[in-house]
């Protein structure tokens, strides 16, 4: 493990005010509401409910406060059952990029319907080994093997664990 923090002084951004999701009208009470960008964002960074605050592994700030994930970086096509999340590590040699990506993937796999195809990538130009990180995050065999590794799974679960207060 690293001895010190990789990025000791990250820039902290204010959390964005949430839009209030419109209540479904009576007319389409039984209509299936498609999954949209905000819903994915809430799955990943739900800080309005008590479910989960996704912590950046080495800081007490959420990935939202660090602008590692923004709603703009989430692309959803519910009709095609497709999500792509583009995240921005705080520094371009961030060694935590793979574990952040793995956490994002695990959270989405656990939350979305199984029909969904999920691509996770680092923002273009945001990481020194961008192609290698992206390739690793999207190789499902490596992801499956990683999630069978007890220490790695513990780390992911810790990142995804609910925090209160």
């Amino acid at each position, binding site marked *: 493990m690293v001895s010190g923090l990789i990025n000791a002084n990250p820039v902290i951004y204010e959390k964005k005010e949430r839009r209030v999701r419109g209540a479904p009208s009576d007319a389409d009470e039984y209509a299936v509401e498609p999954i949209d960008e905000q819903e994915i964002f809430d799955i990943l960074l739900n800080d309005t409910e008590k479910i989960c605050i996704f912590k950046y592994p080495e800081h007490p700030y959420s990935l939202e406060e660090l602008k590692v994930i923004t709603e703009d970086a989430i692309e959803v096509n519910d009709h095609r059952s497709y999500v792509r999340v583009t995240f921005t590590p705080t520094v371009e040699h961030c060694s935590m990029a793979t574990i952040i990506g793995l956490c994002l993937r695990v959270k989405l796999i656990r939350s979305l319907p*199984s*029909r969904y*195809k999920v691509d996770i990538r680092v923002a273009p130009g945001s990481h020194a080994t961008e192609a290698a990180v992206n*390739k690793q995050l999207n*190789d499902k065999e*490596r992801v499956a*093997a990683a999630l*069978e590794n007890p220490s790695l799974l513990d780390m992911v679960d810790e990142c995804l664990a609910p925090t209160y207060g």
Partner: protein
Amino acid sequence: MEFVDGRFELREIQKLEGHSDRVWSLAWNPATGVDGVPSVFASCSGDKTVRIWEQSRSTGSWDCKAVLEETHTRTVRSCAWSPSGKLLATVSFDATTAIWENVGGDFECVSTLEGHENEVKSVSWNASGSLLATCGRDKTVWIWEVQPGHEYECVAVLQGHTQDVKMVQWHPTLDVLFSCSYDNNIKIWADEGDDDDWVCVQTLDEFNNGHSSTVWALSFNSSGDKMVTCSDDLTLKIWGTDLTRMQSSDGYAPWRHLSTIAGYHDRTIFSVHWSREGIIASGAADDAIRFFVESEDKDGLFTSKVDGPTYKLLLKEEKAHDMDVNSVQWSPGEKRLLASASDDGTIKIWELAPVPC
């Protein structure tokens, strides 16, 4: 070729449930499905088990005959039958290879091969059943010699790939081994002497018109002079060699790129299998199964040997499964039966049949 003008449809014969996690791979027993022997195949899964499925003589449907469990402690990634169909080799993320013997319908683990540092990803028997190859996350390919009394001696540890090796496959008739990797390359290994002097005789990389991302699988045509590979770069590639030269020069003649099948797949292609009669099946992360055949220009006007053969899409089965298709395998029997394995935890048996006029 007869397929070019005929119309085909894919009929779902059966959907098999039983695995409790994604099904990674399956293998038909080559000694079954012919001469009245009921067809048998094995499947392996993230649920750490292997299941043996046998076709019923009376109903024609497949039933689970055995569950091989409590041997592998992690995902069972791949499996392969020996040419005689008597032994089944299974490889696992637990770093081991298990050899199972079929004793009157019961499967007994008769040997466990250890040596890989971590995940073992693929296993293949050579044509005579005297050699076994395995590969894995540790970037190596191992060759094991089958000895009496279920002993397996490692005769070579092949290093050359720079990333994990996804699949190993022996040539269908010659003792030449092929491996493909996360490093985007395909490597060809041959025994240069009498002394188990296995060396890499050729690397098919991006500079030989090869793949630009992970190569997941490969398969040979029935005569063994062509090979198809599939990749995360969303293409299939066809490679060819001079088989006569390969047979005479003690095993090796160069392979060259003949054709690239591009523009058909939307997500990673995990599996490819060439049928005896020349139909290439592919299984991909877009949940679809596709079939390709070599397409000859009948007028001969646009056929150029220089450009290599061209391949056309015979059929695409959208939503063949609810999730990624990890493995497609043609059965050894008479009918055009294909089995597919998926992340949705199911196996499906399909028949590719001509559309009635």
